[in-house]
């Protein structure tokens, strides 16, 4: 009892200390949080809804995807070795589905060189269901959270540093195909690296993670999550920065510049030459005879 009293007394001495309020608050949160986790029936419900989601995803998959990817997402090989109607989706993860379906690339309108970005077919809920189903086929990258690719949590100085670093990572890894401006570029046999203008950060992150179509896979081992975040921050900063130099002419480099030098520059100046030469010095016809 004495011991208890002494301890209570020691505690009591700190009860008006600067950290007392915080400690009590944390304790309270800890207790209520633990109790809620232990007692709430939510887990079972989540489990149930996840199963439902996968089932719904499977239904959608059978209707829209199975023709090429197989009824169990195992892929459909063609008669030629090494060619597939659609690749296996085992282990591509939810991120892959979210990217391909969320940007409208899948389902494809027709088999072609590359699935173009087009109008999205499925709504968010359906996309999530498809993602959950494909994720259930085998472990793969999950859909990133916004905190993974946002620099909002950083300080001003850190943000600036992240953007500059992201620019250098972008120029090292991405511009070879997507061009210095993110305007896109050509790939062999009719393929292309699409423009990155106006693409949601989430999709860029997912594309880096899953390597869709001809794009290589920048796994977290190659390009850590922070580096991915910085690249996205750099691309966003480019879109927020005004175009200091005027119209970008497509941001395609010297080819479009040359085109404009000829069309606007030489075209305009030859027009000026025609105008000057067609105007003689005489302004009145009566003077001609003078």
């Amino acid at each position, binding site marked *: 009892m004495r011991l208890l009293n002494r301890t209570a007394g020691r505690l009591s001495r700190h009860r008006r200390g600067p950290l007392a309020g915080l400690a009590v608050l944390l304790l309270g949160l800890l207790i209520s949080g633990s109790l809620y986790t232990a007692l709430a029936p939510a887990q079972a419900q989540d489990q149930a809804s996840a199963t439902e989601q996968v089932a719904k995803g499977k239904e959608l998959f059978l209707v829209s995807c199975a023709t090429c990817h197989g009824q169990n997402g195992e892929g459909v090989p063609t008669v030629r070795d090494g060619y597939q109607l659609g690749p296996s989706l085992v282990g591509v993860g939810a991120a892959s589905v979210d990217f391909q379906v969320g940007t409208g690339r899948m389902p494809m309108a027709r088999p072609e060189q590359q699935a173009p970005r087009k109008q999205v077919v499925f709504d968010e809920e359906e996309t999530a269901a498809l993602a959950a189903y494909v994720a259930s086929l085998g472990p793969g990258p999950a859909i990133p959270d916004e905190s993974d690719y946002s620099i909002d949590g950083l300080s001003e100085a850190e943000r600036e540093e992240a953007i500059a670093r992201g620019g250098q990572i972008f120029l090292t890894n991405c511009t*070879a195909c997507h061009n210095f401006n993110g305007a896109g570029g050509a790939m*062999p046999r009719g393929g292309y690296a699409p423009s990155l203008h106006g693409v949601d950060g989430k999709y860029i992150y997912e594309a880096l993670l899953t390597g869709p179509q001809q794009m290589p896979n920048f796994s977290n081992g190659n390009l850590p999550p922070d580096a991915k975040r910085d690249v996205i921050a750099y691309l966003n900063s480019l879109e927020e920065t005004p175009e200091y130099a*005027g119209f970008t002419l497509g*941001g395609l*480099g*010297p*080819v479009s510049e040359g085109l404009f030098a000829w069309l606007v520059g*030489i075209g305009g100046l030859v027009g000026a*030459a025609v105008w000057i030469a067609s105007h003689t010095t005489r302004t009145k016809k009566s003077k001609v005879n003078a």
Partner: protein
Amino acid sequence: MSIDTSKVASSNGTKAATASKPSPAGSLATWADDRLGLATAMKKNLRKVFPDHWSFMLGEIALWSFVVLLLTGVFLTLWFNPSMGHITYEGSYEQLRGVGMSESMASTLHISFDVRGGLLMRQMHHWAAMIFIASMMVHLLRVAFTGAYRKPRELNWVIGCLLLLLGTLEGFTGYSLPDDLLSGTGVRAADGFLKATPVVGTYMSFLLFGGEFPGEAIIPRLYIIHVLLIPGILLALIAAHMLLLVYHKHTQWPGPGRTEQNVVGFPMLPVYAAKAGGFFFMVFGVIAIMGGLMTINPVWKFGPYDPTKVTAGSQPDWYMGWPDGLLRIIPTGWESVIFGYTISWNVMLPILIVPPLMLVILMLLPFIEGWITGDKRDHHLLQRPRNAPTRTAVMVALMTFYGLAWAAGGNDIIAIKLDLSINQITYFIRVAIFLGPLLAFWITRRWCISLQRHDNGKLLHGYETGIITRSPDGAYAERHLPLSETAAYTLTARDRDEVFHANGETDAAGVAAPNTRSEKLRAKLSSWMYVHNVQKPTRAELEAAHHHAEHEAELQAGLDHPVDGHQFDDHHLRDADEVPLRGDH
């Protein structure tokens, strides 16, 4: 004759006259004339006559854009630091702050973002360079298509070709100076081209770069070449080009009153000084608008050069696009190994052999043509392109070759913008670069010849009036009326082409004629060049045609009242001769 001299002299009597006080401008002119002898030179040159035609002003675009280049270039040198010293960028462009780069790149960014008007000057300088070379090329085409390069202007043509070459080199060195990712990629490519030269390649590369690529020397060296060496030579050659222009006098289109001995046009003062001066401001204005509104070479987006980086759309500026295109379409495997040394035909052919060869062909054009025709006369009257079908067709074939190679240089941009396969474009151009010029040659020549035929038709049968008459038996025919004297003169003011025939191989004594082989070749080429051409009608043919036309008119005199419906309204019936004519036929 009584002239009032009181205004200029105090006396007209026996005492010596004293001049009245001249105006300030007059006294200044006299002061200068006494010391520099300007009056004699100016008297002639201020009245120098230039003929009026828009195509004669194309070279002026080049001249004025060169002036803009000098002005903006001087501005840029005040801040540009041509050094490869490594520093960390701390300027106002956020996305690159803290990134290591060369001082030349940092000073380019400084000019772009921290010097007032710097970005405008940089962009104007770059646009002016693009327009400078483009206008030299259109000027070259004008000179070639009109035959202005014939005697006595062959050497001025060669000087022009050298100007084109130097302008291109000047452009390349300027493109390389900022040391951004794009220019670094270009310099790396140039290094590869040098190294592709057999035997001496690596030595040349080490000489240029002061060691292994990239080293520290290349930017300062390119800088001094760019701001002193090439501009100096360019200025000297431009001066020579224009002095020869003054000496030869300007060419002119044929027409009544225009001969090989005169120039019909307007004098320098006051007319051409105003026109040319005004044109300078237009060129300046167009370049300023482009520099102000249109992005060119945004170095801040490329970032500093780093050999580990590259960007899609890495192209040279447009004038180097065609060798780049040849490089892009050449099969990659064309290499041979001799004594353990690799000869890279796939780089040598498109870069080191074909472009210099094309330049030599271009320079030789007037000499080759002169040799085939054997024409030693001076030519100051221009030819219409149709009246030299082979020359026109050769130029169009060369343009087609150039254009296809140029398109190949932008194959990736064409592929993404037109949804094509870059491979298919390459395969197509590999074939088209051989067939295209031949096809273009054939089409152009036939086209020119049929235009000649059309001209002859107009001379012999008159021009088409657009009046359709119906004969009593129901046939429709278009009325033709004779050309005006002026138009007919202009159309016939050209020489007849004479096919050269080689002398017999042996003379009467059985001795072979000298130069038989080259003469035979010349005869063959001359026949190839001229044999299909349509010659202008002879005097007899023209007279017969006129006689025939008069006869026709007589026959139709009584029938010449077409019922056009206007008999019933207020419009009075018009005779065919009163029909308003198109232009000045």
